[in-house]
Every structure is written in C-alpha cells, then in structure tokens.
C-alpha cells in the first residue's frame, strides 16, 4: 500500500506491505538504523521516535499509521550543520550512555519530556523515562543529562 510521510524533514513515498511496522520501515526501507529494536512487546523504548512532535514507540505502530505525519528519528535531531541537539550534547557531557543501544530512544524520550515539562524535578524525570530501559548506566547519568539540558536552556 502507498505510504507518504515526512521523515527528518524530507518527503518520503513508499509502497509497503501493510504488516510492516513503522520501526521496520525506518530501519529496513529507509536505512535509518539509529532507531533500535530491543523487545517485541513495546516495553523497552529503544525504538522511540517523534511522531508529529510526540515521543512514540515505533515498534507499536504500523508504518501505515504514520500516513501523512512528520517523523523525526535520532538521525534528524542534530542541527543541519551537524551540531548536536542540546540533549545529545548533554548525554555526551554527562556520560549518559555506555553501549549506546538504548541511547537513541532515550534521547528521543528525554527531548519530548522537556518539551512538555521544561523544568522537571528528578522524580519527574525518572517517572518520565520509565518507558525506556537502560541496562548499562543505572540511569544516574541519564537523569543528570536531562537535568543539565533543562538547566542549560
């Protein structure tokens, strides 16, 4: 079936099998492999992207459900000149990542979190990220990165 949407600012047209998940479309059709798959039950958050500005788990949607939307993936977060988004920079500065596998999803969730709540408390940050698993960092430096990003605006 015909699918048209915008991904990272570019118009995309494709013919997809209706069973295709949005995450598969991004990874396999568009080769945007920054969006990761960590589970098959919609729980780990590694696949988190922005759909019309909201953080969603791209494994929980069919590609066709993104018809006509604007999708941003981790590849589209940095400025066009390549400068990292402040949240990406904060993750680097605060060592908010180790193996990097949860990181794209975590960064996408964190940016959406600050959009809704620009000055969150630690508790609100932890609650806001509880749909994203990280097995490496113990979350300590992820929380610090979000605080740093929030503080630096």
């Amino acid at each position, binding site marked *: 079936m015909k699918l048209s949407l915008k991904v990272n600012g570019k118009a995309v047209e494709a013919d997809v099998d209706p*069973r295709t998940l949005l995450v598969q479309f991004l*990874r396999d059709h568009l080769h*945007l*492999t*920054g*969006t*990761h*798959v*960590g*589970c*098959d*039950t919609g*729980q*780990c958050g*590694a696949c988190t992207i922005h759909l019309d500005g909201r953080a969603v788990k791209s494994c929980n949607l069919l590609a066709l459900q993104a018809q006509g939307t604007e999708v941003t*993936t*981790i*590849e589209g*977060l*940095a400025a066009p000149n390549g400068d*990292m988004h402040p949240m*990406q920079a904060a*993750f*680097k*500065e605060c*060592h908010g*990542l*180790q*193996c*990097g*596998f*949860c*990181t*794209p999803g975590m*960064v996408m969730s964190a940016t959406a979190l600050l959009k809704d709540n620009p000055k969150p408390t*630690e*508790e609100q*940050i*932890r*609650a806001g*990220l*509880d749909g*994203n*698993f*990280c*097995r*490496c*960092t*113990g*979350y*300590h*430096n*992820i*929380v*610090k990165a979000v605080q740093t990003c929030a503080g630096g605006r």
Partner: protein
Amino acid sequence: MGANIPNGIGASPRRKEDQRFLTGAGNYTDDINIQGQTYAYFLRSPHAHAAIKKIDTRAAAAAPGVVAIFTGADLAEAKVGGLPCGWLITDVSGQPMKEPPHPLLAQGKANHVGDQVAVVIAETYLQAKDAAELIEVDYGVLDAVADVATATQSGKPQVHDIAPNNVCYVWGHGDKAAVDKAFAGAAHVTTLEFRNNRLIPNAIEPRAAVAQYSRSEDAYTLHVANQNPHVERLLMTAFVLGLPEHKVRVIAPDVGGGFGSKIFLYAEETVITWASKRVNRPIKWTCERSESFMSDAHGRDHATKAELALDKDGKFLAMRVHTKANLGAYLSTFASSVPTILYATLLAGQYTTPAIYAEVTGVFTNTVPVDAYRGAGRPEATFVVERLVSKAALEMGIDQAEIRRRNFIKTFPYATPVGLTYDTGNYEATLAAALKIADVAGFPARREEAKKRGKLRGIGYSCYIEACGLAPSNIAGALGARAGLFEAGEVRVHPTGSVTVFTGSHSHGQGHETTFAQVVAERLGIPFESVDVVHGDTGRIPFGMGTYGSRSLAVGGTAIMKAIDKVVAKGKKIAAHLLEASDSDIVFENGNFKVAGTDKQVAFGQVAFAAYVPHNYPLDKLEPGLNETAFYDPTNFTYPAGSHICEVEVDPETGVTRVVNYVASDDFGNVINPMIVEGQVHGGLAQGIGQALLEQAVYDAESGQLLTGSYTDYAMPRADDVPSFKVDTQVTPCTHNPLGVKGCGEAGAIGSPPAVISAIIDALKDLGVKEVSMPATPYRVWQAIRSARA
C-alpha cells in the same frame, strides 16, 4: 599518576564513541545487511523435556521463500560437533565432571523450553517464521525438572542419562577437617539458608549474527554480537565445525551490552555460519526478545546453606558453605567454573577467617543453560559472606562496622585459605569513607523522621572483594581452564605520528576507545585525538581473549603498555641515531626523545617519520617501521574491593521498599577515567539492586515452563526504581601491573545485593523479621512482616 597532557591518565575526556552512538551512526550487528542475504528463524521446543520422535519439514520446505531447512539429523550427518565447555571441574571422587553432548540443534530430545529444534532459512524473515510454523514435530513429552534445590533427589526426571540424579559434579574446596574442628569450639554459630535468585542478563541489544561464505576465498565472515571474537572463532572452528581457523573472520562490531551473556559460543551463530556455505548465501539472524528470555544463558540460581563460626568477641573462626548450583540443561561455555572457581575462592571476603570449606553440586535441570552474568560467582560469594556477617553482628549485638573491622585483613600480601593471594588492599579506607559519605552518624535521626511518615528505615552494609583481571594462565590451567587468559595489544605508529591501537579486549559499553587512547596519549606524549583504538575484528586485531571479569584495563591495558614500551625502546634507538648520541643516553619525556642532561631532542613524530622514511636511519642495525605487538599474561588476579552502605524505606502497609540512599566507596587501584569508572559502578549498582528487589527468572517446577518470558513478567529496573548514587574511590594501586589498575566493571553488581537485603532486615528487625529472600518484592516483604507479626 597525574595527567601530564590534557586528556591523559586521570582525566575524564568525553568519550570518542559517543558521537556515533548519539547520532544514530552506531554499527550494531542488526544494522548490517549484505547483498543477497537470507534470514534464519529457529524453531524452538515449547516443551521443557520431550523426545523428538519425528520432524516433518515437507510442508515448510514448500512454503514461499524458503531456501533451506536443517534439523539435528542434517547436522549429525554433516558430522558437525556440539558446543564445548571451556572449564573442566573435577568431582570429589576424582572423576571429571559429566559432560553431556550439547548439540546445535536438538538430537532426539529437547531439554529445555527454547531448545533449538530446526532452522528455517528464507528470503525474508517473515517467510522464515511463517514456514517454521508448518514444521510438524512429533514430541513425546517427558516429565521435567527445573528446581535446583530438589533436582538431585532420587526419582526425579533425569535430564541426561550420563548424569545420574542430575549431578554434573560435586566439587569440594578448602580444609574440611579444620573447619569442622573450628565449629566444634565456636562460641557462636550463625546459619543462613537462602536462594540466590536466577537472573536474565537482558542486554538491551538482543543477540544477532550475520554469516557470509565467500566461494572465491573459501572463507567465512561472521558478524556477531559477542564479547570475545577470537574465543568465539577458536571454539567454533576447532571444536564444532572443524573449519580451518584462518578461514573464518569473526567481527563483533558495536555491541549493545553484554554483561557476560555475549561471552559464550551459542548454537544460532554457529548454525548459520555452517549453513551459509550450504546455501551459498549470506544469512542473518536476529533474536527476538521473547527468544532471548529462553535462549540467552541465565545467571546465578543457587540454593545455599552457609554457616559462620565465631568466638565470643565476634572473630570469625571458620565458614562452611554448601551450594547447589543450577547449570541448566547443557554446559554453556564457562558454566562449570562460575559456581566453583569464581565462587568458593572468594569466600574469605575481606576477612581473616582462617578455615573455609565449600562444597558445590553442579546440577542439570530442564532450563536454559546458566553461565556468567555480571560478577559471575563473586556476587553469589559476597552474598554468602556479607549476609552471614550482618546476621552474626545482629545476633551477637555487635555494631555492623565494628564486627567487620575486627576481622579485616590488614597486612598484605595475604594468602586466604581458599587459594588466592591478595596483593594489596585497604579495607578500612573504603569503610571509613563510606561511613562518612553515608552520614551513618545521622542515621538514627533519619530513622525517627521516617517513622513519623509511617515508613520503616533501615541501613545495610556490604564489604565485598572480587578477583578480576583473569588470570594467570598457568594457574587457571591447573584449575581446569581449557584456554589461556592473556591479552594482546598492538601499537601501530603511523609515519605522521598518529597511532592506531589494536586490542584483543572488546568494548560493549565500557569505553575502551577512550580509556585506552588516554593511556597511549599519556605514555607517548601525543594528543588524545591522535589515537584510535580498534577492537572486535579477528581480521585486524592480534589474537586476544576479549572482555569479561573486569579484565580489560588490567590485562588488555597492560598488553598495550608493553607494546608502548617496545615502541619507546625502538624510538630511543632511532633518536640516538638522529641525535648522534648513544642509545643509553636517550630518555623519553613528554613526547620527546632527549639526550639526558642536554637540550638536544627530537619529537616523537620526527622519530616516527624517520622510521618510515629511513633516509637518515641505522638500517644496518635496525628494521624500519614503528609497529609493536605485545602479549601479557598476568602474574596474579587483581582484587578490587570496597564498602557499600544502603538505606531503604519500607512501607509496612504495602511492603514497598525504596532505596533512598546508596553509597559505594570502591578501591579499583589507579583510575584512568573517573567519569567512566563512576558510570560502570552506577550500572552495576542498578543491576545489583535489580537482583535484590525486582528480578527473578521463574520456571514452573513441574512443567519446566518459563513463567517470566517477557518484560511483562520479568521486572527490569527502570529509572524510577533506583536512586541517584553516591560513589567514591579510594586508591591502593595494584602491585603487579604497570598501570596499577584492578578493574571496576562488576563491583556494583557484586557489592550491592547483600547491602540492600541487610537494609531491609534492619528496617524490619523490630518487627521480628529475620530473613527476606531475593528479590524482596512488595509481596514478599509484606508477607515477611505479616508472618513476623503473627
């Protein structure tokens, strides 16, 4: 060791790997696609224990897109071997452990839920998966056994005929007679009986592999999410597939966490490597998370009875430990060593306990294999020691810090009664730091304040030790290791003076590309930016043993140091020629080769250039080039140690436990990058707190079904389950490696579970609660409160 250059040793430069990970440019195995690739899907047994009477693949073979289907019979016919176990444990009888075959695809019998029965290779993943549903397997379901505590009783179902009563080995360690004698004369004996809960490692990147066979080269390339590509290749070629080792290249690219679970040689990547030649197409396999739960090696799963004998002053006289360790259905790569060599040798902890005896029964069950998971044997040992000590202090009315101080080892080197010699340590330093940072003096006031809010606040201690930096190969060999445990490093200086380091260690989150570059930059006096670190590719790196057991810096880093020494030694000779001085007068300082006591010098870069453009060069005495490799086999383990103090608040109405304060003071020896070290501790703590409060793999004891087969049932620690941590380091440099480093990767997971559990028991002690088992879920804590009140 201070940093002599920016971003040298002791500094915290931000990580080199982060740019790619933060922008979606990481290159994980599932991101790799090869022209013409097919996809594999493994059909797995839904039964814990079942005879496979017949497999009919005809309908599946005719399904759309199917390229090939293989079963155990095909592998047997092709004379493909089974997966080997890397460590031989000898039974108390003197007999070797029982080693049942571990076929890649089940042969005649499935032995756990998730056991691979067949593989379907098809044009697309969905076609492979759909076709697998058409395979008809005629199972004869057998009774299953899953519970480690009861599996050895007579009359239980037998997993393997060659292992009566499901016993793989009974292994004894220590002086039993001395222990029995000490117990007979003890003033006090503390006893503990508990289960160390079974865990699922759950690296967020599921296992994955892409195998490719090249007809033109008659060679294979395997990309695989793995922690030690050379070990993977050696085991796969020499023991299973019978392929020439040099015809297989194993690449472990970016790997999304390992925690031990990606050390092992697994069936899936071995099968697709073999099959890639059969079908003459690349094959990709990516594990779905539901498959990970039933096919990744699990961790822990002990049933233990432990006793500590003390004199009237709380001095430890002896310890006796009996453990039944679940090995699962087959022996995974290092399964046999984890509950033995890596466990019982740590039972002295930080203490002078003069006599220790441990007896470990390795037990087969119809569950997925159990092997190393972050800490591997050492968290289990620490739990035994630290819970015994905390309980004894409570029973004898001795302060928790005081009882530990009375028993600390204070002089080094110290030979324990369980076979290790600690080279150095300062246990008082980490305890004192932890007591201070945790403000233990203010605890009674915090407890009172919590009480007013209806919460019960408790404090728990854990003073752990670990043996890292595996290992002196000859000692490991004498203990049954079937592999060497050295590490290799190559320092390749380029003509313009920049450097590429090739290391046998593998980073799957640890940040070696940064830390190792700091070491090289500092030692060669060149910019951190001029050093790149390459790892994870047998086609590029020297033969190395990979990353596990917190060994990378202590062993892999030392190999690099040795290679640097060779570079500097050769550089001195080149410089002597350029400066017209004698070799022995040249010193190397801050990136310059100098004639000692003069201002004559050449920069490192000039020497590198001369080595590759040898116009003015002592070609009669010296080869051109500046490229050195070193192998390093350690002379001892390293012994990181530390003190952890945990404070919890328990809601007595709901049983909900919150960790409200967590302090870790650790001694990792010298620290190269404090930021990375702290991150390693944080991650370990979350896993340890996860073990203590949340995580447990549960098998139904009768059916052998895995009841926690998804994230709905297996509780992973989330951001709001853990607090921010207070971490500190104290430094007593390791005495036997040139960097003075000990390793930090596992400490958090090792030290924390007993601290958390002891804190809960402290919170509930006035209610009469004496034990709470892991994981201390709200339901269990609530039950403990209820039954104590009853």
